[in-house]
């Protein structure tokens, strides 16, 4: 498995470079928005990847509440952390697209607000994991994650059921997309998914080693305490 990681890393780097080339050079220029529309090739795949990671976090949290397996708990932490990174990209690239197109950086529209709330929920989840010292932290965090995941469908379907300034969904919704643009969008999504998978893999390995070291440190301090007595 260790040998596979650098090979996948190189393949992902090639795919990301190819996806960038497609987004900046090959994709047709949108008639009304011009080149700024190309932000869409990073904004949308990042959002889809973040949603997927939050769903993994949800399933891992439910599984942890049932089985109490630390490995599943590690999957939950890792998916939430990487999900927050991708959600941050969404919240930064969105206003950079909105400023030239809408004339404003931000509006308190349901899609934008619910995405911000989603980001805040998972930041709260990570802060709970980082700063709480209680042995019940994984259980509390898993419960928070189950409720937090409820915001994901709200974010996704908000543009279907509410009047919003955000563009309509390009797949399965009221919007439409040129097949050449769709191809570039899907390649970029694949590239970001591979990238997210590699980050999650290395972060999971780090999380497991960190837990092992932490366990050894507590054991050591316990032995020192016994020795002192």
């Amino acid at each position, binding site marked *: 498995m260790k040998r596979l990681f650098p090979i996948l890393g190189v393949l992902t780097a090639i795919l990301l470079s190819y996806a960038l080339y497609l987004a900046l050079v090959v994709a047709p220029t949108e008639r009304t928005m011009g*080149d700024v529309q190309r932000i869409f090739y*990073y904004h949308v795949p990042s959002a889809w990847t973040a949603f997927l990671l939050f769903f993994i976090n949800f399933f891992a949290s439910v599984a942890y509440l049932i089985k109490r397996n630390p490995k599943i708990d590690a999957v939950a932490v890792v998916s939430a952390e990487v999900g927050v990174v991708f959600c941050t990209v969404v919240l930064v690239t969105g206003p950079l697209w909105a400023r030239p197109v809408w004339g404003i950086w931000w509006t308190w529209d349901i899609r934008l607000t619910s995405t911000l709330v989603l980001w805040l929920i998972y930041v709260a989840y990570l802060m709970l994991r980082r700063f709480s010292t209680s042995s019940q932290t994984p259980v509390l965090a898993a419960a928070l994650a189950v409720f937090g995941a409820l915001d994901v469908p709200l974010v996704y379907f908000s543009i279907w059921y509410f009047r919003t300034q955000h563009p309509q969904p390009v797949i399965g919704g009221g919007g439409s997309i040129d097949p050449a643009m769709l191809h570039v969008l899907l390649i970029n999504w694949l590239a970001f998914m591979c990238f997210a998978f590699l980050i999650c893999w290395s972060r999971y390995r780090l999380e497991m080693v960190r837990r092992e070291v932490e366990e050894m440190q507590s054991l050591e301090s316990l032995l020192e305490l016994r020795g002192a007595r």
Partner: protein
Amino acid sequence: MSYLYAAYAATWIIHIFYLSTILTRAKRVRKEADELKRK
């Protein structure tokens, strides 16, 4: 065009920053593991 480049640059700055935090944490954990082995 400046907004487009700003968005692409911001994306990679966020990812590179996150990757650097993973590397820093990995170094710290490795150092702690080495200290425990020495004891």
